[in-house]
């Protein structure tokens, strides 16, 4: 197993650093890899879809987990899959659908690994019903700093320190996931085009519980009375009876087309106010209010996949994603944050707003009851200042930022946002007393 020097960055391509990278193929090789760690430590990396710097380790060792890519077994009767941590959710979905099995938590991209999904305790549009990823993990195998393999269940404290623990408790090598059953791979979708933020939020608050999936996209390019206009999209799994005849022949087909890939040639200014306004206008207009539309996986779950590697449109300086959750009752703060973004004139295309349900026991898990909002912001002058203003607003409202998206806040802010972080640090220190697990994010935010 040779180590190769590689420069790694997150999905936002903002803060690259160099590390020695190894790609183990077996659990034994993961254990051996840990011995290669020197004083600059080691961290696991999945598919690098976190936006910032949690899956890189400057000057140290990075374990690329994509070599652990076996699905061990699928128990269709018990609705359980036992899989290596390097397997992507995309692969899992494709393998599970023929059995009528479905992953209960799916993020905005399927290109994340099981290990990354546990490391960030990811959530999807179904959070208000399904909770987050680790709520569906029946067991996981964790290799800790001493090279031991621990099989953890939700009864273990270490299980919850690893959920959302950003790879800092050890390396997850394998997991057993509980699954849902579906009759079809399609969604029955209700769409509401709503022309201002107040109403968008009000409508989303009324009957979310009737839907498994619920999310809004909102426009950050218009001001005035239509500020925060948007599209509320809510859905349930389509049953066999819901499908039109031509889809009924193959209802569990993995139907996820990708239409267009953006070439890597965009100049930094390509995404400007004008092009963003055009995009938002189109996105808004293409989604008139309608009921019971049948949509495939791409259309409903991953509409941005139609644009292939859309992050390239943001240009070579990269971009960051700002995602917070602000507790219910603080709706004014949510609205103020949208106004701040719109007034600052920073263009963003992917703007989503969703209501979270209850959180879980993990001290660093992000979701908690409240409004979660995410925007993509290309890096340019002034974006740092805007985010600082937003941080203050989020802190004042008792909210927090999502570590899987985080790339620029302060250690002090994170400590205030995650009041149980010391509890997590204690569990972590017990299992990694020498502190061999470390990442650029852990250094930057002084997490450990």
């Amino acid at each position, binding site marked *: 197993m040779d180590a190769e*020097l590689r*420069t790694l960055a997150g999905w*936002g391509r*903002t*803060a*690259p*650093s*160099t*590390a020695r990278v190894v790609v183990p193929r077996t659990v034994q090789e993961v254990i051996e890899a840990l011995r290669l760690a020197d004083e*600059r430590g080691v961290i696991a990396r999945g598919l690098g879809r976190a936006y*910032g*710097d949690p899956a890189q*380790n*400057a*000057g*140290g060792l990075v374990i690329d987990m994509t070599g652990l890519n076996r699905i061990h077994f699928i128990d269709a009767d018990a609705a359980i899959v036992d899989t290596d941590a390097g397997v992507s959710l995309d692969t899992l979905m494709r393998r599970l659908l023929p059995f009528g099995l479905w992953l209960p938590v799916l993020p905005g991209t399927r290109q994340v690994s099981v290990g990354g999904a546990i490391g960030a305790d990811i959530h999807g549009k179904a959070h208000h019903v399904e909770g987050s990823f680790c709520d569906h993990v029946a067991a996981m195998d964790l290799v800790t700093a001493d090279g031991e393999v621990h099989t953890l269940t939700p009864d273990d404290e270490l299980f919850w320190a690893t959920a959302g623990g950003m790879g800092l408790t050890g390396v997850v090598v394998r997991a057993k996931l509980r699954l849902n059953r579906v009759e079809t791979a399609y969604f029955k979708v209700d769409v509401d085009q709503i022309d201002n933020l107040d109403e968008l939020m009000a409508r989303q608050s009324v009957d979310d519980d009737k839907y498994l999936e619920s999310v809004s996209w909102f426009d950050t390019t218009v001001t005035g009375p239509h500020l925060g206009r948007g599209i509320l999209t809510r859905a349930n799994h389509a049953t066999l009876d819901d499908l039109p005849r031509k889809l009924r022949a193959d209802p569990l087909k993995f139907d996820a087309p990708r239409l267009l890939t953006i070439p890597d040639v965009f100049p930094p200014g390509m995404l400007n106010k004008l092009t963003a306004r055009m995009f938002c206008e189109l996105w808004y207009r293409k989604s008139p209010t309608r009921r019971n539309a049948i949509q495939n996986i791409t259309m409903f779950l991953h509409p941005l996949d139609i644009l292939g590697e859309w992050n390239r449109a943001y240009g070579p*300086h*990269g971009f*960051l994603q700002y995602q917070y959750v602000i507790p219910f009752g603080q709706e004014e703060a949510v609205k103020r944050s949208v106004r701040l973004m719109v007034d600052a004139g920073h263009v963003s295309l992917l703007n989503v707003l969703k209501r979270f349900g209850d959180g879980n026991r993990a001290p660093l898990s992000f979701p908690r009851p409240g409004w979660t909002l995410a925007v993509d912001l290309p*890096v340019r*002058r002034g*974006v*740092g200042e805007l*985010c600082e203003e937003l941080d203050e607003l989020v802190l004042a409202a008792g909210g927090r930022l999502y570590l899987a998206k985080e*790339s*620029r806040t*302060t250690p*002090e802010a994170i400590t205030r946002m995650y009041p149980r972080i010391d509890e997590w640090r204690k569990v972590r220190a017990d299992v990694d007393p020498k502190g061999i697990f470390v990442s*650029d994010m852990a*250094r*930057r935010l002084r997490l450990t």
Partner: protein
Amino acid sequence: MIDAVGSPQSLLLLGGTSEIGLAVAERYARQRPLRVTLAGRPSDRLDAAAARLRNAGATVTTVPFDARQPDTHTEVIEKAFADGDIDVTVVAFGVLGDQEEAWTNVDVARELAEINYVAALTIGVPLAERLRKQGHGSIVALSSAAGERARRSNFVYGSTKAGFDAFYTGLTYALKPHGVTVTVVRPGFVRTKMTEGLKPAPLSQTADQVAEIVVNAVRNRREQVWAPAAFRGVMSVLRHVPRPIFRKLPF
């Protein structure tokens, strides 16, 4: 670590009283909590520099550094890195000297060469080694437009800066695979204590204007910038002016 919007958490200033260097540190300190290490010759000026940055909100320590004692330079770097990773290092020490003396008095010529060029290497080599191991970080190397083409008025200084520039430009290539960015900055005339009493040249700037250019260049991981940016164009013209004409130009 340098974050997604280009703000560092720690900064080392080699030439701890440099007005340009301090302006850069001050800009960063105003953005974010910043740990600064000032490397310089102990003096009231150095203490005042530390006080200025503390005022701007930074945590400051000083490390003794004399450019003319190259044998100590590895130790200077070790001390500077003792408190942890350094995100941005500004190489800002330098002397301009009296140019007529510089090409007629061997001691003055040697002083310029030892400070501006030799020390840039003897401190630059251990610095590069530390950053290579660290796997991230940024060097801001304050070169000079004077190094671009020898001029009658300041060619000794210019020759030292030409050597300085070539070394740090080379480091740009050598360190890139190790996650470290080097930004070579070529200012024109900057109104600081270095140029005190001299008649400002065209397009002269303040230290803070240069600092703004530096901060943007680091954020965008630029490898070479001129200050002001317009100098790039001016220089590419001057570079091609035939020598018989160039030597007669009034600077």
